[in-house]
C-alpha cells in the first residue's frame, strides 16, 4: 500500500520503495565551511566510477573549471569569490593586501564561456547580467586574476574578500523527481535510500534531466544515456565509504547514516553561530521541505543560489495528481466538443 506521503512530505524512501529489510538511510553531509576546494572528491569519483574526463580547460569563471554537475562530473566543486569579509565580527583581512581589482567585465565575458564536457546540456553559457551582478561590489578581484594578490596596486585600494567552496553532488532526494518520471524503471531506489540509474536499462529519453529540480542529471553524448552520482552503490554494498568522502582531506564530505549526519550538522551550525559565523545555515536537511529532505545535504555560508543551488526546490510530482485531474477535465471537454460538433447543427 503506498504511503500517504509517497509523492510529498516526510518519508523513509527505502521501505516506501518496497525494501523489506532496508538498513538505515545513508547520505552525505557536506560542510562547506571546511572545504578547501582541492577537488580530490572530483578526481576520486572519476577514478572509482570510471567517469570520462572533462574540464581540462579553463572556463575563465573563478577557479572553477568544472562548471556544473554533468554526466561526466558527478562531484562539482563550486568556487565563489566575494567582496566581503570572511567573518562579520573580526574581518581577518582588514589590512592585508588582497590584490588588484578587475572589472565585472571578466565575469560577463566568462559567463559566455562553455566547454565541451562531452555531455548534453553539459555546461551551458550563463546570463551576463547575472554574472556581473554576482561579481559586483566595492572590489572584485576578477577571476581568473592576472596577477598574484597584492601586486601592482596601492594599499588604499585593498579590501576584504572571501572565498566560498562547495563540493556539489546529486542530492538523492526523498522524493526524487528523476525516479518518479523515469518511464523505463531504469532509475531505482536502493536499499540504502539512494537513487541510482541502471545503465543497462536507460534508453536516454531525457525525462529525468528536465525533472531534476537541482539540474544534476545529464546526458552523455554519443552514449545517449543519463548519468549521475550513484553514491558509490558498489562500495556501499561492500561496506565501504563512497570514494569522494574517502578522499576528502578535510572531512568536508562526511558519509554516514542520515539521522546521525543531521544531528552532527545541527551541532556544527550551532557551533559556528557561537563562533561568530551567523550566516552558516543548513540546506536540504529538513524532511519537511519541498523534496522531503535530501540524502546529501549541505552547510552553506551564503544563500543557496550563490552556490548555484535552487533556493526552494519542490519535487514536480507533488502536483501530479492535480495535473492528471486537469488533463482528465481537458479530455472530457475535448470529447464533449467532438460530440457536440457532430450532433448539433445541421450542415
Amino acid at each position, binding site marked *: 500500500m503506498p504511503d500517504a506521503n509517497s509523492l510529498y512530505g516526510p518519508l523513509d524512501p527505502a521501505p516506501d520503495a518496497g525494501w523489506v529489510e532496508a538498513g538505515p538511510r545513508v547520505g552525505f553531509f557536506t560542510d562547506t565551511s571546511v572545504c578547501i576546494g582541492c577537488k580530490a572528491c572530483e578526481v576520486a569519483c572519476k577514478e572509482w566510477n570510471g567517469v570520462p574526463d572533462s574540464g581540462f580547460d*579553463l572556463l575563465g569563471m573563478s577557479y572553477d573549471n568544472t562548471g556544473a554537475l554533468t554526466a561526466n562530473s558527478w562531484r562539482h566543486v*563550486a568556487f*565563489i569569490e566575494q567582496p566581503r*569579509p570572511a567573518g562579520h565580527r573580526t*574581518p581577518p583581512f*582588514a589590512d592585508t593586501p588582497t590584490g588588484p*581589482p*578587475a*572589472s*565585472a*567585465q571578466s*565575469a560577463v*565575458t*566568462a*559567463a559566455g*564561456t562553455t*566547454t*565541451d564536457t*562531452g555531455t548534453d546540456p553539459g555546461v551551458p553559457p*550563463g*546570463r551576463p547580467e*547575472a*554574472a*556581473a551582478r*554576482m561579481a*559586483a*561590489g*566595492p572590489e572584485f578581484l576578477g577571476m581568473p586574476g592576472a596577477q598574484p594578490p597584492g601586486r601592482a596596486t596601492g594599499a588604499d*585600494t585593498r579590501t576584504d574578500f572571501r572565498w566560498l567552496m562547495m563540493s556539489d553532488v546529486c542530492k538523492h532526494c526523498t522524493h526524487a*523527481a528523476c525516479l518518479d518520471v523515469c*518511464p523505463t*524503471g531504469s532509475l531505482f531506489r536502493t536499499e540504502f535510500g539512494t537513487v541510482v540509474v541502471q545503465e543497462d536499462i*536507460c*534508453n*536516454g*529519453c*531525457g*525525462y529525468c534531466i528536465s*525533472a531534476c529540480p537541482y*539540474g544534476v542529471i545529464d546526458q552523455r553524448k554519443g552514449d*545517449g544515456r543519463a548519468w549521475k552520482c550513484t553514491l558509490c552503490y558498489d562500495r556501499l554494498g561492500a561496506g565501504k565509504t563512497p570514494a569522494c568522502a574517502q578522499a576528502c582531506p578535510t572531512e568536508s564530505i562526511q558519509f554516514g547514516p542520515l539521522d546521525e549526519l543531521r*544531528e552532527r550538522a*545541527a551541532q556544527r*551550525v*550551532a557551533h559556528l553561530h557561537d563562533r561568530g559565523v551567523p550566516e552558516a*545555515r543548513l540546506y536540504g536537511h529538513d524532511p519537511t521541505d519541498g523534496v522531503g529532505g535530501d540524502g546529501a545535504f549541505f552547510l552553506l555560508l551564503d*544563500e543557496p*543560489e*550563490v552556490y*548555484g*543551488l535552487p533556493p526552494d526546490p519542490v519535487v*514536480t510530482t507533488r*502536483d501530479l495528481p492535480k495535473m*492528471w485531474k*486537469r*488533463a482528465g477535465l481537458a*479530455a472530457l471537454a*475535448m470529447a464533449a466538443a467532438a460530440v457536440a*460538433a457532430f450532433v448539433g447543427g445541421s*450542415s
Partner: protein
Amino acid sequence: MSPERPAVGDLFRRFRARLAVEGAARPGEPGGHAPKAGTHGSRATGTGAGVARTDAGAAEAGLAPQPLRDVPPVERRRGRRKGGGGEQLTVPPAEFTSYYGRPILKAPVWKWDIAAYLFTGGLAAGSSLLAAGGQLTGRPALRRAGRVTALAAVSASAYFLINDLGKPSRFHHMLRVAKPTSPMSMGTWILTAFGPAAGIAAVAEAAPWLPERGVLGLGRRLLPPVGHAAGLVAAATAPALATYTGVLLADTAVPSWHEAYPELPTIFAGSALASGAGVGLLAAPPAQAGPARRLAVAGAALELWGSHRVENRLGLLSEPYATGTAGRLLRAGRALTAAGVAGALVGRRSRVLSALSGGALLAASVCTRFGIFHGGVASAKDPKYTVVPQRERARRRESRGPDVSGPGAGPNGG
C-alpha cells in the same frame, strides 16, 4: 568524450582574447583585463562588515543598472502599465543572485522532434475523433480523411519519439513498466492502444479496392466492420492522447511548463481539435464539413483561452512565452487560429476558402506547440526563472508561518 576537442588551454586563450576585445569596445573602459586603479568612480572604497554588494559591476560592464542587491525586493505586483500599448508585460527587472550567471536547471535535452510530436500526436487524436464522427453520422469524406491522417500522424509520432531517444535501439524498454507517476510511461501505453487501432481503421479504408472474390474478397467484406470498431477504439483513446502531453511537459522542473500545469492540457486539447478540424476542412466538400467548422471553433476557443492564461497568469514565468522565439511562435499561432476560424465560418460554401482555413488551423497548431515548447526551454536556461519565483515562495511561507524554521535554524533544525 569527443576526440576533436580543442587543445588544452585553447578555450582560455579565446576567453582572454574576447575579454580584451569586449573590454576595449566599451566606452570609458580601459581595455583588457588589466588591473584598474581604485579611482574608478563607481567603486566604493569602504570596507568592513555589511558592505552592500551593489550592481556597480553590472553598470560598469555596460549592462542595465540593477537595484541594490541586498535590499529586500519590493512587492512586484504592480499590474499592467496604464495606457501602455497592447498587452506588453511589465515585469520589472528581476533582481537575484546566481552562481556566475549559470543556469541552475539542466534545460530539456529534447530536440525539435518532441515539439513536432506534440503536433503530430494532437493531429492524430483530433483526426481520429473527426473520423469517428464522420463514421457515425454518415460523412464518408470526413471518415476517410480522418482515418488516413490519424495513421500518418501516429506513425510520424512514433518516429519522432524513437528518434529523440539517446539510445533509439532501446525504445522497447518503455514497455517494461507502467508507472502513473511517469506521464511518459502513461503516454507510451496510450500510444500502444491508439496506434494499432488507428492503423486498422485506416487500412479498412482500402476495402473498396480489394477484388470481390477469393480470400481478398473476404477481406473486402470483413474490413469495414473491423475498421468501424477500430475507429471507435481510436476515438475513445484520442482525448487521452491529446491531453497527456500537457502533463508530460508540466511534470518537470522547467519553471514555465510546471507552473502552467492547469492550462497545458487544455491548450493541447484545443490545438488537437483545431488541427483535426483543419484536416476535415482541407479534405471534405463543404457539404460534409459542417462538424469540422464547429470543431474548429471549439478547439480555437480552448486553445486561445489557455494560451492567454499562460501568457498572463504566471507573472515572471509568463515572460518566456511572450518574448523571443516562443513569443513570435505563439503570436503567429494566435493570428493563424483567428484567421482559420474566421475563414472556416465565412467560407461555408467555398471549397478553396475552407481548404485555406484548414491549412491555417494546421499551421496554427504547429506554431502553438513549438511556442510552448520553446518557452519552457528558455525558462530553464535562465537562472532568473528558477531563483526569483522560488525566493518569493519561500518569503511568502516565512511571512505566513512563524513556526517554519528559517535557514540555519538552531540545533533542532535537523
